[in-house]
Structure formats: structure tokens, C-alpha cells
């Protein structure tokens, strides 16, 4: 046990990814200031941003292999941070998928070109928030992490050249997000109160301590129960679980497509992990009522997402609804985690998210490429006949869509097997049953995209441009490489991870 005042070198080493990220995130801004408030070249900013993420990623890997891997988990800073294999993977995934997110933002025309350095800074700060919450072992730290992640996001949504919709989305997101945060704080207060009055402790703030007392408190203390509900609700909002999901289609649609990717992949990964922390503190484990409710919420989330998506005509909105549906699957995994509480379930969830992030990157790069051409949202009809015109990107879209649908040779299938396996192992048969049904319903709208891509005759949208626009030469070598490696990974990732 460390005494509160002293900070050892190991602790600094442990948080070095965050420190590096923070320092390097200032780089684009500094460059801008030194140039006399002239926006530096966009590619330079992108380069510094990606550099920051990669450095942070590298530091994370180094610290893990040198310090954490020896122990199962490691506390630091008066036990307010915890470093474990799970948090290592969460941090890795967040950093990893922020890289394509930043690249997509770079290539999207609707991000204000004059403010890209600020934008990059905001995104990196938001990633910093993810790191913080991944390591949090303290309700306050968790809260700070979530807020640090969300606040820059509100501004980023706003920083779009696009129509009024993005302003509306930003405001909606901000107001509702604040309400969710308020619930989180309220729940925190209740839980503090409950632990104080029952145990005569000092306030119990550490998640690992709460986990120890929650079994007794859940049964005896109504205050603790209500506090748990508040926190669960707030987290449910963050991952867009059923009754708290209604903000997400509008926000996802209203913000830039590149930002939508950031919201449905890295932010979702972090939110799921934050959720798992709350669950780890035992807020769901000891109440069968809550477990039942959340089982059905998981099912309803899947179904609402799928049925919502069936009705849409905008590809982006379909993907937004599909992301809600995926929250249902993730909730299934989280439930299994809260009931059994081993790291196996978290591995399954992380694997699922890894596949989801990769496949979604493929679909979104396709989407953004055409949005830039069209200047507005891509509707389903706009895809007609693109498959043979733009083979590489379309193949990426095909792989991405089928993969997200969980079709076999792609990585999404293995993610699904993992999650379902954990759920069956936990005894969540009905959720799995509905999950299986839902994957057929979901296939319906995913396959609709493929139908438009490959099976329909081309229409006027394509003819708007001359053929030169549509040759793959329009893609830079680099983006070809990215898409190509994405395709390969989508197929072979499970095998790579098996070793």
C-alpha cells in the first residue's frame, strides 16, 4: 500500500500512455500558435495526431509487458487507478480505433478545414478520457473519465460545416448526455450515503471496495439499490440500451460520418468498459430483478435496433440503428460478465468489439468516400450498381456488412460465437435465443445494402460523374493499402489471435 502523498516511479510509468497522449495532443495547437494562428497543413496535423496515438499505444504495450503482466492487476495512485489485462485491452482498442477515426475525419470534407488542429486536440483529449476511465478504480475517477471523454465530443459534433442537423445533434447529445451524467452523480451520492450509514466506514469510493460490500447492501439497503439503478441507467444511456437509446440515431445521423465512426466504435468501446466497471462493483450481480430487467432490455435493444434499421433509407442511419442492435449483443456479454465475473467474458466482449471496430471502419471508409463525392448523405438507391464500378471499396463494404451481420468466414462471426458462448455458459438461454432470431432479422437489412451494391442496375447517381471519378485510381495508394489490409484482417484475424 502506498501512502497517499508519495508517487512512485512505477506509477508514473504506468500512466505514461496518458501523459504522452496529453503532451502530444498539444502539438497541433502549439504548431498553430507558433505559425501565428495560421492553420498548419491538414496532413501535418493528422500526422501528429496519429503519432500521438501510436506513441501512446506503444507505451501501453511496453508498460503492460514490463510491469502489469507480472501481476494480475496493479493499483496505483492511492488505489484510485487499477491496471489489469482487461484495462490493457480496453486502452489498446480505444487507441487503435481512434487512429482510423482520426484518418476518416481527416478525409471527410465536412470537418471545418480551418479548425482541424483544434479538432485533433479535442479528439485526443477525448481519448485521454477513455484511458482514464479504463483505469479507474474509483467512482470519481470513472466519472471524470466519462466526462473527459464526452465533453470534447459535444464540441466535435458541433464543429461541422454541415447543415443545421449537426447543431441539433450536438445540442441533443449535450442535453441528454448531461442528464445521464447527472444520474451518474446522483447514483454515486446514494451509494456513498449507503456505505457510510451502513458500515460506519469512511465513504467507500473505491470500486473494488464497493464490490466487497455490495452483496450485503443490495439486499438490505434501499438507498444502495436506487443508487445502483441510477448508475446503471446512466451507463445504459452511454451504450444506447433500449429505453435510453432514442438519442443515438439522431446524434449519429446528425454528426459527421467520420465522427459517427468515432462515436460508435472507440467511444462505445470505452462506454462498454465503463459499464463493465460499474457491473464489476456488483450493481447487477446480486439483484435478480435487475438481472431479469436487463436481460429483456438486451433483447429489446437488439430488436428495436433491427426493426428500426429495416425502415431506413439512409445507409448511415441503417448503420446507426445496427449499432444499437449491437449494443444488445454487448449487453448480453456484459450480463454474463456481471453474473460470472471472470475475465473470460470480458475477453469475449473485447474480441467482439475488435471485430466490430475493424469491420465498421471498412463500411465507413466506403461511406465517407461517396459522401465526399455526393456532398450529402448516401441513400440506399445511391449505392445501386456501385459494386462493379469501384471494386475495392465495394469489396470492403461487402466484407464489412457481411462481417457485421455475423456471416461466417468473417471476424464478426467469431465475435458472435464468443459472446453467445459466454451467454449460454451463464445460462442466459432466452437472450441467446432472441439474439439468434435477431441475427436473421438483422441479415435482412444488411443484405439490402448488398442487394443495392451488387444486384441493382446503376442509376442516375453514378452517371452524375464521368467514369474517371470511379476508377480506383482515384484512391491514393495509401487508402488502397488500408482497405486491402482491412479485408485481409477481416478474414484472418481469428486465426492470428488463436496463436
Amino acid at each position: 500500500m502506498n501512502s497517499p502523498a508519495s508517487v512512485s516511479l512505477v506509477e508514473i510509468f504506468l500512466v505514461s500512455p496518458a501523459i504522452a497522449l496529453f503532451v502530444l495532443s498539444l502539438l497541433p495547437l502549439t504548431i498553430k500558435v507558433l505559425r501565428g494562428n495560421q492553420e498548419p497543413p491538414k496532413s501535418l496535423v493528422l500526422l501528429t495526431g496519429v503519432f500521438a496515438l501510436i506513441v501512446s499505444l506503444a507505451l501501453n504495450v511496453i508498460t503492460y509487458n514490463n510491469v502489469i503482466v507480472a501481476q494480475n492487476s496493479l493499483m496505483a495512485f492511492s488505489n484510485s487507478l487499477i491496471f489489469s489485462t482487461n484495462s490493457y485491452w480496453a486502452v489498446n482498442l480505444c487507441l487503435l480505433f481512434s487512429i482510423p477515426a482520426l484518418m476518416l475525419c481527416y478525409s471527410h470534407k465536412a470537418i471545418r478545414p480551418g479548425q482541424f488542429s483544434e479538432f485533433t486536440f479535442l479528439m485526443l483529449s477525448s481519448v485521454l478520457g477513455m484511458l482514464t476511465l479504463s483505469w479507474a478504480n474509483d467512482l470519481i475517477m470513472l466519472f471524470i473519465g466519462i466526462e473527459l471523454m464526452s465533453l470534447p465530443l459535444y464540441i466535435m459534433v458541433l464543429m461541422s460545416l454541415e447543415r443545421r442537423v449537426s447543431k441539433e445533434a450536438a445540442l441533443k447529445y449535450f442535453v441528454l448526455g448531461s442528464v445521464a451524467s447527472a444520474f451518474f452523480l446522483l447514483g454515486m451520492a446514494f451509494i456513498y450515503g449507503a456505505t457510510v450509514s451502513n458500515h460506519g466506514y469512511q465513504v467507500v469510493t473505491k470500486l473494488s471496495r464497493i464490490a466487497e460490500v455490495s452483496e450485503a447492501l443490495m439486499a438490505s439497503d434501499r438507498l444502495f439499490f436506487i443508487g445502483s439503478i441510477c448508475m446503471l441507467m446512466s451507463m445504459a444511456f452511454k451504450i444506447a440500451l433500449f429505453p435510453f437509446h432514442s438519442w443515438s440515431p439522431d446524434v449519429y445521423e446528425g454528426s459527421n460520418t467520420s465522427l459517427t465512426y468515432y462515436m460508435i466504435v472507440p467511444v462505445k468501446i470505452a462506454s462498454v468498459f465503463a459499464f463493465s466497471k460499474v457491473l464489476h462493483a456488483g450493481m447487477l450481480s446480486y439483484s435478480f430483478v435487475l438481472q431479469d430487467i436487463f436481460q429483456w432490455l438486451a433483447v429489446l435493444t437488439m430488436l428495436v435496433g433491427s426493426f428500426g434499421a429495416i425502415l431506413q433509407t439512409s445507409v448511415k442511419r441503417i448503420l446507426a440503428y445496427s449499432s444499437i442492435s449491437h449494443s444488445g449483443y454487448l449487453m448480453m456479454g456484459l450480463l454474463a460478465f456481471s453474473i460470472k465475473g471472470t475475465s473470460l467474458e470480458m475477453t469475449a466482449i473485447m474480441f467482439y468489439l475488435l471485430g466490430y471496430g475493424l469491420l465498421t471502419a471498412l463500411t465507413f471508409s466506403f461511406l465517407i468516400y461517396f459522401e465526399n463525392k455526393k456532398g450529402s448523405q448516401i441513400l440506399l438507391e445511391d449505392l445501386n450498381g456501385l459494386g462493379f464500378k469501384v471494386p475495392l471499396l465495394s469489396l470492403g463494404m461487402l466484407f464489412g456488412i457481411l462481417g457485421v451481420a455475423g456471416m461466417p468466414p468473417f471476424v464478426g462471426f467469431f465475435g458472435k460465437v464468443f459472446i453467445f458462448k459466454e451467454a449460454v455458459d451463464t445460462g442466459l438461454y432466452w437472450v441467446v435465443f432472441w439474439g439468434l432470431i435477431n441475427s436473421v432479422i438483422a441479415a435482412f437489412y444488411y443484405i439490402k445494402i448488398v442487394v443495392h451494391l451488387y444486384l441493382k442496375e446503376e442509376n442516375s447517381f453514378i452517371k452524375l460523374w464521368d467514369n474517371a471519378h470511379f476508377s480506383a485510381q482515384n484512391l491514393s495508394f495509401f487508402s488502397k493499402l488500408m482497405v486491402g489490409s482491412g479485408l485481409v484482417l477481416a478474414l484472418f484475424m481469428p486465426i492470428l489471435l488463436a496463436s
Partner: protein
Amino acid sequence: MYLTGLIFLPLFFLVPILFMKKPLQVKAISFFFSVVHFIYSLGLFLKFNMNEAGFQLSEKLPLIKSLGIYYAIGVDGISFWLVLLTTFLLPLIYLGCWNSMNKNPRTYAVSLFLLQVSMLGTFLAQDLVLFYLFFESSLIPMFLLIGIWGGAQKLYATVKFFLYTMFGSVFMLGAIITLMILNHSVTGTYSSLLSDLSLLNISFVQDSLFSTQTLLFFGFALAFAVKTPLFPVHTWLPDAHVQAPTPGSVVLAGVMLKMGTYGFMRFVLPLFPEAAVNYGWIFCVLAVFGIIYGALVALVQTDIKKLVAYSSVSHMGYVILGIFSFNELAHTGALYQMLNHGVSTGALFLLVGMIYERTHNREISYYGGLAKLMPIYTIVFLVITFSSIAVPLTNGFIGEFLILLGAFEYNYIYGIFATTGVVLGATYMLWMVKRVFFGEVSNNLKELSLPDLNLKESLALAPLVILVFVMGLFPNLFIQFTKSSLDELSATVNVEQPYKVSEEK
């Protein structure tokens, strides 16, 4: 490595194909590769030991260790001929449909070869997750085949096909996952290997729908019943067949339908023997119903292709009846009938495709007196028709006879009803043949120039015609390869045959 090569060879073929530009080049090289693949697969004859019951040429590599998912493949008597059938049909498809494959030939080749990969993988996989992986991934190329090159209603047909079969198989995925967990609870390790799982004694409670084995059995059976297709869940098939281009129809009828019946033999019977015996009557009844229903519906079709499609429903009913009659005779017959159906229905679809290419019409009433215009075509069509309606000397006879024999031995009531299907089968096929080929030459045909079969088409059909007679006259050539594996299968499913007449031998 031989079997891995067999499965994944088509992927290597795709590399040069993707760099070809001219349609003719693409088709020529695809045909060449399909022949190479077939010749490679003939190596099975050298390596396969027909006296051994278990899997041979096995390969095993861990795919995901923590879940016990393996890349495990192997061949035995049940899959032996199906593998050969798969590789055998593709060159014939290329020859027989040469002229109709001009639109996007590269994508055509990619879809067909990917389909080969997934079908071969399905027949060779020994690990359930691997099997599911191949089984499901066959949907995508077939989806594209029907959707890109199909007829007027192709989008409806292909989406229906995709969702229908996917709906069937998701529950199998759930069942597979449950099996993996059951294995964990018994042995302490997760595993989806067939060899591990068949050692499990899955609890079965008589007359309870919710005992583990019953639920798992129905999870698997639904997937395979849809694929087969068994009577009430067959409705995707006519649409898919009619809208599919000829190569799609041939592969679908020739090989993909067998993935369902193969699944019954390979997984359902060995893994859930008690449930299969207990609920086998459901499948027998449905199969018999399908035999008669398919035949009756085929009788009233006005579209030749749709007629052949419904005849598939009827024929696959025989296979299911054979499988659920639980004796060696019927099992042999079922396996034989699968091959017959692949040969005869594959050939029928090729023939229908050839005439469609000349006239662009499939209505029976459009034709008449074709025998005078295309004599060779007519002879081939007749031979295949005889095979399809199980005339003695042709292959169809052996299969149906063995199945009916087995069915009578199991329960004569099924046998009696199934036998009526033989008569009905003759009725609809011969009536169609009469209307299309004989009588006055119809006015529609008089204006057209109808060349008889050209060299490529004849070459495509010749092996099938020869096979019809070889399989009809020398069934032992084929059965000797399957015998030991089927012996073992029938031994696993030990039925107290409820209606068995006598045990004299």
C-alpha cells in the same frame, strides 16, 4: 495436406482469373482449372481405404484454442462420393453453359469457385464450428449467383433464399455452442470436434420436448431440413431454382441440397441417436408427404424449370425417408439417391438451360414436337428422365429401390405411401416429355432455327449419361466405398425397430 489442397485449390485458381480481361479467356481458364481440380480430386481413389470406417486423411490444427475450435478435416465413406460429385459437376457446368456465361465472367468464376470451397469444406469438416463456417459461407456466393445473373424476379428469390436458409441455420449455431459447453461440463475442455462430441452422452428424456438432446436435435434438424428442403420449409427452393441461372441451379440442385441430407447423416444421427429415433416419425411423415406433395405440384406446373424444382422436393423426400428409416439398406439408398439426384437433376437443369438459351422460353405449352427438330437432345433428355423416374437399369432405380426396401423394413406404412411417389414421378415427367418432345411441331418452334446439341454441350452431357448407366448397372462399384462407414452409422443408431417383421437370416 491433400484434403486442405482439395478444399482451397480453387482460391489459388482465382488469382490468375482475376487478371484476365477477355470473357473468352476467363471462361477457358476457369474451365481448365475446374478440370484440374477434378483430376486432383480423383487422387482420393488412390488414398482412400474403403475398408476403414472412420475418417481418413485427417488433418487437425487448432483454430481458436481457448474455445476448442479446430481446423479438422477428413473424409469417410459418407462424404467420399459427395466430394467427387462436387468437383465433377463444375467442369460440366462450364461446358454446358458456355454461351450463357458472358456477363461478368470473372465474377461468375469467383462465385463458382468460392462455392466449391465452401461446399467441399462442408463435406470434409470434422469440427462443428468449422462445418458451420463453411455451411453458412456457401450462402454468399449463391446469393450473388442468383442475384446477379438470375431471371426477372431474382432479387425476391435471392433474398428469400438467403434469409430462409439463414433462419434455419442460426439455431444450429446455438446448438453447436451448447454442445461445446456440454463438452466442457463433462471433460473440462471446450471442444467442437465431432470426435469429442460424439462421445458425449447427452441427456435424453422420453416424451419431453425440453430435454437437452431433443432441443439440440431440433436445432440441427431445422437447419438441415430447410437446406434439404423438407416439405413445409421447402418454399424457398422453387423460387431460387427458377430464378437462378443454369449454373446456379445445377450447383444448387446437384450439391447444395445434399449439404442438408449429409448433415443429417453426419451430425444428427451420431450425435442425437435417441432423439432421432424418437422423433424420426416426424421426419418420415414429412418426407412421405413431401414426396407426394412435390410430385403433385410438379404435375400441374406449366414451367419446365419449376417442374424440375418441385421434382427435387419429391426426390429429396426419398433421401430423408431413407435416413430416418434407420437401417443400413435405407442409409445406403439415401446416400445413393443423393448422388443420383446430383447427376440426374443436375443434368435436367443443364438440359433445360440449353433449350432456354435457344428459345428463351420455359413454358411447356410453348413447345411441342421437339423430337423432330433436336433428336440428340431428345434422346439425352429421355435418358435423364428415365434416371429421374427410376426406371430399372438407370441409377435412380437402385437408390429408390433400396430406400423403399429399407422403409418397408422399418415401417411398411411409410413404404406404401412413398411408393405412390414413384408412379406420380413417372406421371409428371413423362407427361411433360410427351408435351414438349412429341406430337405436332408447335408453331412457335417452326420459325426458330434450333440447332441440335453442339460439341461442348454434348461433351457436358456425355459423362452424365454414361454415369446414369454405370451407376444403374454396377452399383457395387459405388457402394463398396460407402459400406464400412454406413455400417458404423447404422450401428450407432440402434433402433428397437417397432414394426420389424422378422429377424430371419
